[in-house]
């Protein structure tokens, strides 16, 4: 077991953590699958509106690799297939019927999993609809089943602001988790790396077998996949690494042990705008209003995921496929007189230009205000202290903006993802969205192959 102490980065201690108590929520009346989340796939609907579906029924298939399918997490009726600009598919919404009838595949016993071939495992993962839980680096897209990754990373920690504690989710489910790891073990000739928080208490983080366990401690982004990969098996050009979130390892396990697509999703309900902050047990794609038990407020932002990398779901929105957290924070947008003169007793900043920076750290309340307008980058030394990778952020940013792909690759863009620069985007006084620029560079590289 190796231990990595991450020093660069910063924790944003936001008000509104979830109480560590799991409450089962009633099945939401509507759930949605949002195709744009599955990066790298070009999804086409396999159902029509009004079709009846079961848990595990195919909703969408990939145009280029039809074996990759997205399945329904609930039984019910397809209420709407929503298209956005340029007829891009944005959501498949399903009215639940509450019965949760499921498509069932032959289950395997725990011991049998070890005897399955890689092909058998692949085909089960694909047909069962669990495949999209496996993603690849570089490019953070859904894995291609024809690739052979050099390693598989299991992300069993999350350091995002107010992130759910994975111990709560994994509690008492060690055997299932081990079965899931055994499945993943078959996918790579290399190692399966289980990356845990050094403070984790779950037996999973010390007793899992057939994997290499690593512990990380330090501020965010110590829990990011890029951080783990960088310190354990960094990506060279041509390398492919797959990664799975610990919650999804349970979904993998269920597909083999029970033969069903397990729709369950634990969600930490967080943020000062949420009334009841706890861990909710619900289903994949649950509606925001079901998670907040209908108590929606105006002037609040409903984020699926964390404040750093989540998506603005809105009151009418749905939980993202990969999200185990919902954050509710106040919307900003109020104008203040002579803001640049404000001594800032209550302002939140990484910089030392506010009185609050010198006061004892407390949990902070932050709204969605940009707090300034976009300007040319002047302070180029602010970024690197938040990136625990061997990356010169400003130079990488500049190479991408200049369209110099070759230089960007040399500077290590393939090791990164947008989320690794979320703290830089937060802290940038010029209000440049560093992560979005880097993501643009990755897209460009991917397109050029």
């Amino acid at each position, binding site marked *: 077991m190796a231990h990595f102490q991450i020093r660069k980065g910063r924790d944003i201690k936001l008000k509104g953590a979830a109480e560590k108590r799991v409450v089962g929520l009633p099945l939401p009346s509507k759930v949605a699958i949002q195709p744009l989340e599955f990066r790298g796939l070009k999804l086409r609907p396999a159902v029509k509106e009004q079709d009846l579906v079961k848990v595990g029924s195919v909703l969408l298939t990939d145009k280029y690799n039809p074996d990759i399918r997205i399945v329904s997490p609930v039984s019910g009726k397809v209420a709407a297939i929503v298209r956005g600009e340029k007829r891009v598919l944005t959501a498949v919404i399903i009215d639940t019927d509450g019965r949760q009838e499921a498509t069932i595949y032959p289950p395997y016993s725990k011991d049998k999993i070890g005897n399955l071939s890689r092909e058998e495992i692949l085909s089960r993962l694909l047909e069962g609809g669990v495949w999209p839980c496996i993603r690849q680096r570089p490019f953070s897209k859904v894995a291609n089943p024809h690739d052979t990754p050099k390693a598989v990373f299991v992300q069993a920690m999350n350091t995002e602001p107010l992130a759910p504690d994975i111990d709560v989710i994994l509690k008492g489910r060690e055997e299932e988790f081990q079965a899931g790891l055994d499945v993943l073990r078959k996918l790579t000739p290399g190692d399966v790396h289980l990356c845990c928080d050094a403070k984790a208490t779950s037996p999973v983080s010390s007793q899992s077998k057939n994997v290499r366990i690593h512990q990380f401690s330090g501020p965010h982004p110590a829990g990011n996949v890029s951080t783990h990969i960088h310190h354990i098996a960094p990506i060279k050009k041509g390398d492919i690494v797959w990664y799975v979130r610990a919650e999804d390892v349970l979904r993998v396990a269920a597909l083999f042990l029970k033969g069903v697509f397990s729709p369950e999703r634990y969600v930490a309900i967080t943020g000062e705008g949420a009334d009841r902050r706890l861990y909710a047990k619900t289903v994949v794609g649950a509606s925001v209003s079901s998670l907040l038990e209908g108590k929606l407020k105006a002037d609040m932002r409903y984020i699926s995921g964390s404040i750093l990398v989540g998506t603005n779901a809105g009151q009418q929105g749905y939980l993202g496929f990969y999200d185990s957290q919902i954050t509710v924070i106040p919307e900003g947008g*109020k104008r203040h*007189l002579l803001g640049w003169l404000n001594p800032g007793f209550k302002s939140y900043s990484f910089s030392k230009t506010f009185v609050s920076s010198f006061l004892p750290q407390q949990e902070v309340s932050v709204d969605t205000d940009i707090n300034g307008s976009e300007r040319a980058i002047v302070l180029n030394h602010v970024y690197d202290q938040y990136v625990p990778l061997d990356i010169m952020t400003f130079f990488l940013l500049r190479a991408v903006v200049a369209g110099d792909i070759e230089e960007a690759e040399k500077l290590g863009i393939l090791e990164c993802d947008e989320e690794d620069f979320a703290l830089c985007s937060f802290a940038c006084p010029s209000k440049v969205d560093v992560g979005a620029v880097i993501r643009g560079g990755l897209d460009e590289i991917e397109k050029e192959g």
Partner: protein
Amino acid sequence: MKLLEKQLKKIEHLFEKGKPLEKFYPLFEALDTFLMTPGKVTQRGPHIRDAVDIKRVMVFVIIALIPTTLMGIYNAGYQILVAKGLSADFGQCWLLGAQKIIPIILVSYLAGGVWEVLFAVVRKHEINEGFLVTGLLFPLTLPPDMPLWQVAVGISFGVVFGKEIFGGTGMNIFNPALVARAFVFFAYPAQMSGSNIWVAVDGFTRATPLAVAKEIAKGQPVLQGLQDAGYNLSNMFYGFIPGSIGETSALACVIGLIFLLITGVASWRTVAGSVFGMLAMASVFYLLRGPDKLAIFALPPHWHLVMGGFAFGAVFMVTDPVSSCYTDAGRWIFGFLVGVLTILIRVVNPAYPEGVMLSILFMNAFAPLIDHFVVEAHIGKRQKFLSKTI
């Protein structure tokens, strides 16, 4: 406050696309966001943003310049009274100094501001707050008796050729305020160098400490020579000596530096690098001192810190994040070489008594090259590391 917001809202439409004042939108934006925070919200992750913005950063640099500016005003008046042989009345010093210095600062802001707005309008970008700093830095590098029209020409040159032709804020290679100063330095040598320009009294001549030190004959004790000319460590540190408006008081610069470092606005590495570089090079000359060497060789290294424009340059010019190095290693090298070059010019160059401006500009030109090597080394190190991993 609501009233102001309403008023701004009321006139905003005049500057929108297709409206008569469309072209002047940058001007409206500058005024609008100067008076009130923009109040825009994030669209995607990260959903929250740091409370700091460039406006605040630049305002903090201005705050750091306040001690220097006040000292410059007071000292300008003080020097006039001393030159005239009058007693240095506290109020008189302020009054006379303000009469001399305030117009210079105003002209600098006004003339430079016109160019700034013009470029923002033509290029359709926002007015960058960095100008607030450039517009104050430049006058502080001038002698107090500078003709106002030369101030205007100088800042115009600095803004246009120091910054805008490179593409504007953030893209400039040289520090615009120093470009402006270099321009007037070479274009109007009569008003920018010599011994009769440092005190705003006609016909009054008094050489600056560096000029004095350089003039002392070989083999003569340099400290004695400075003492005879009325200069000692303490009055040079506090700044009650003739010189450019902002440069005389090392104390005021140190106060500004402490403020910049506490607030994290300036990089301490460049400042530390330049102080080390200066002390190292000055020590070399100090060790080489002897009866056959120039008298200035024997100047103790720490004297250089408080003489001339070094303190001002090291605190406010070297630390310009855009025209110095962008890598941590580069910042050390950049600062160090600025210090070394400054001493070289001061001690052995026969033409100029002071070398801070030229050495910073020279190193500005080399900063991208230094960074290039640092980044290449970083890439090499990465590749070596990656080739060792599985």
